[in-house]
């Protein structure tokens, strides 16, 4: 347990468009310990996916990544494309929401699974195949010796997601980035896949970054959480702290607007008013000010500071300490 496996410092991902610079990720910093699971939560357009694609340097042209990403002592942004390729897939792997998009429909699963280990580990054909069968067995594909020669379309959605996980794990990566890995799946299949990730993590000590919009998934999986909004980290805390005592009006809104089936709710659900801002057209002050129950004049004028309200618990808010102390509770049903 020496040093973090990954440390990200002031990560900025920008796109130069005809309408000016779009800051998709705007100053994200965190450190991930070995064996830790970090949840990154946000709505669409919050920059959560772009932030994780940036780690793999998979941001499409003309995206520009700035800041520093240090993976096990190596600065990833200074690597050449070919050096990066040696790390990607071998030491860092990624799984996506839509497995159909990351599996080649024309190739048998066996071809796609053996390709990685032959490339990265120099396995021979026979060795690679038996390793691939073993991986499929690990992720719970029944009858892997036979199924390995099927094409991706012959698997169901949940099974395809497992094939992708098998592929991501075949070189025994130290870091697994899972971008909405269960969003397209039914709840019972989601439970299976999350269980699988949890189990594999315990067995191999892989560090995991779990990107999701579902706070419920984070509650059950992550040690620490980052809440993103408009490309910025709005709150960062241990999962327990965040759920017990959030320090940012946006996180509080997200937590309160989720129906908790264990609790009796009469009357309307808490709602955050309005819409997330357009990343190409962010306001000057706090990007959440227009939707915030705690906003004052300063919020529309000045960008909010990132305040440590408790050890290892940060909130991006002019009134972070006040919100954390619960001095101004959120209105019962939102604005």
């Amino acid at each position, binding site marked *: 347990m020496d040093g973090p496996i990954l440390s990200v410092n002031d990560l900025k991902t920008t796109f130069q468009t005809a309408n000016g610079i779009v800051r998709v990720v705007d100053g994200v910093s965190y450190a991930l310990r070995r064996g830790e699971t970090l949840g990154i939560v946000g*709505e*669409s357009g919050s920059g959560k996916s772009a932030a994780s694609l940036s780690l793999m340097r998979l941001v499409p042209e003309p995206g520009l990544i700035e800041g520093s990403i240090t993976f096990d002592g190596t600065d990833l942004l200074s690597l050449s494309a070919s050096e990066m390729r040696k790390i990607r897939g071998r030491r860092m792997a990624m799984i996506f929401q839509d497995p159909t998009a990351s599996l080649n429909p024309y190739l048998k699963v066996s071809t796609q699974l053996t390709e990685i280990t032959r490339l990265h580990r120099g396995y021979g054909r026979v060795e690679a195949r038996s390793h691939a069968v073993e991986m499929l067995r690990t992720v719970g594909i*029944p009858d892997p010796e036979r199924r390995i020669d099927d094409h991706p379309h012959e698997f*169901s959605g*949940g*099974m395809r997601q497992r094939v992708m996980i098998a592929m991501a794990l075949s070189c025994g990566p130290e870091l697994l980035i899972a971008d909405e890995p269960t969003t397209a799946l*039914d*709840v*019972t*299949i*989601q*439970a*299976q896949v*999350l*269980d699988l990730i949890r189990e594999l993590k315990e067995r191999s000590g892989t560090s995991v970054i779990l990107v999701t*919009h*579902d*706070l*419920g*998934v984070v*509650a*059950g999986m992550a040690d620490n959480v980052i809440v993103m909004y408009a490309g910025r980290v709005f709150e960062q805390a241990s*999962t*327990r702290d965040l*759920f017990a005592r959030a320090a940012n009006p946006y996180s509080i*809104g*997200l*937590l309160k*607007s*989720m*129906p*908790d*089936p*264990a609790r*009796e*709710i009469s009357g*309307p*659900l*808490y*709602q*955050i*008013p309005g*819409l*997330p801002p357009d990343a190409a057209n962010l306001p000057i002050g706090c990007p959440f000010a227009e*939707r915030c129950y705690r906003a004052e004049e300063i919020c529309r004028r000045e960008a909010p500071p990132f305040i440590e309200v408790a050890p290892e618990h940060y909130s991006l808010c002019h009134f972070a300490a006040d919100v954390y102390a619960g001095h101004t509770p959120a209105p019962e*049903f*939102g604005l």
Partner: protein
Amino acid sequence: MTTDQEPLISIRGLTVSYSSGRGLIGKRHTVKAVDGVSLDIAEGETLGLVGESGCGKSTLGRAVLRLTEPTGGEVLFRGRNLAELSNSAMRAERKGLQMIFQDPYGSLNPRMTVRQIIEEPIRAFRLAGCSDIGARVRELLETVGLASGHLDRYPSEFSGGQRQRIGIARALAVEPEFIVADEPISALDVSIQAQIINLLKRLQAEKGLTYLFISHDLRAVRHVADRAAVMYLGRIVEIASGREVYSDPLMPYTKALISAVPLPDPNAEARRQRIVLKGDLPSPIDPPTGCPFHTRCPYAINDCRYVVPQLVEIKPKHHAACIRINPENPDIDTNAKAESGATSIFEHGSSGSNGSIRIDPSKSA
């Protein structure tokens, strides 16, 4: 399943089957997407319909409105059998029956302005004179929380949540009594979902609407629905009040479904016992014999392979379809312990060891 008053909608043995032919030589399959569903929905009630993808819940919703023609059974709307109506009579009846779709992108014509989209049903049913129609459209827009400045814009200029509001305004334009909301929040962001749920509930309170709320999201159904029905492979397997389905599920599938819902509470997540189901939903082309759930059920015994369980009132107003529970012994865990002599098909592999009738589930007719 019966309520004291006359139900607004009464679904009786509704069946939708498709035949998936394989050309001249191949074997023809019949897929029963909805298999003999009976449900009553009282006036002003929200009935939640939950199930995993492919269970037939959307087909059921569409068949109730005859957007998909049912192949059997009937749907009574205020006592009138919709299935018997001619197309033109059905069209007139649609004024009272509307639908809100999951995909606010696909269900709005991209070449029509918001004004045209909302005006269309009003004109079609001649519900307002030419002079009043503009005022009516503005009123509807305001009801769903959009500004009249949005009237001459196109759907592509709106976000998902706003498009869903346009879809809701269109449904409300004909002043319906009954609305089928098919996954109305699944395509929306978390912070927007609460807005749409609150809007639907407010409209219900104001206009006395009756909803069939279809969703795979148990958390949303638990919050929105007065009663919730759980669907599996075309059949209703459990139905009770929203609270009871959640707090006291009886049927093993419902138990598994509820235990799989992620809770927004790390302490509860750490404590909970999860029933993780093995495998996927079986193909409706070749459904299991007996209880459709027996292939994945941790409590399944040999009988489950050939006895089709009927929906039985196990507790007051709480129906479930499972042969291992009954009104005297409603708890399957207790029953499973008491009957531990019975052979579980999981403990003993696939071959039945007693003398009961065996049907190979993989070779159903």
